[in-house]
């Protein structure tokens, strides 16, 4: 597939990397001349997906998280966030608002927020293999 620019990041599932990941993607997206609101939406969705890899994918210890971003034609930012963790048995259930297997410091709203803030959103997961989140955001062209 054709793209105008691309980048890939790989880092261990340490919670200190949540801020790093959303900031890095926002920096990459800056060349698309996004509005502040669009940038906020992108930062939020990336933060949710990366946090899920850190909290849920690797519950016992560290694993790798990969982020691939591409700028596609018509000002579309394509983001893929992938882990090789425990996977999700029932994706449909996991995407239900307020569903969480986490403790009191989770809200179960992560997938709902990714879905609301992005133009397209999809989750592929397999138990014992890992989870991949695909999302796209179309940015308005500013004149």
């Amino acid at each position, binding site marked *: 597939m054709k793209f105008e620019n691309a980048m890939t990041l790989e880092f261990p599932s340490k919670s200190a990397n949540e801020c790093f990941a*959303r900031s890095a993607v926002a920096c990459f997206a800056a060349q698309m001349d996004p509005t502040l609101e669009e940038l906020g939406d992108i930062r939020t969705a990336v933060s949710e997906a990366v946090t899920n890899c850190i909290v849920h994918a690797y519950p016992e210890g560290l694993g790798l998280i990969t982020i691939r971003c591409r700028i596609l034609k018509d000002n579309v930012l394509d983001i893929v966030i992938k882990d090789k963790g425990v996977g999700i048995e029932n994706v449909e259930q996991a995407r239900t608002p307020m569903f969480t297997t986490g403790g009191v410091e989770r809200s179960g709203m992560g997938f709902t927020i990714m879905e609301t*803030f992005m133009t397209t959103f999809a989750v592929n997961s397999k138990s014992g293999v890992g989870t991949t989140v695909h999302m796209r955001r179309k940015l308005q062209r500013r004149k």
Partner: protein
Amino acid sequence: MHFTSYLQDSRLTVLLTGEIDHHCAKTYITAINSKIEAYSPGMCVLDFSGVTFMDSSGIAVVINALRTMNASGGTLAVSSPQKQVMKVFRASGIDKLIKIEEEVS
């Protein structure tokens, strides 16, 4: 992390600052709980004006504060969220559970 708070007529305001994500959510939850325990207010207001970013971990912070206040028969409100924070509140539906005092501008 430093949390400023003030008590006025049994109304406790806690000023939150910075970016609230999973990495630091526990710090916020613990700090808010200990303020509520220390002052036993009838109402607690979480002032979000200094929060520059929040993801769904911030929702958990608010829900935990709500639980703590409900346990003592008190109420919780949120005030002055910035645009990105307000968007997360709306997307999660928490604006239907808790009073959000938006900044008058």
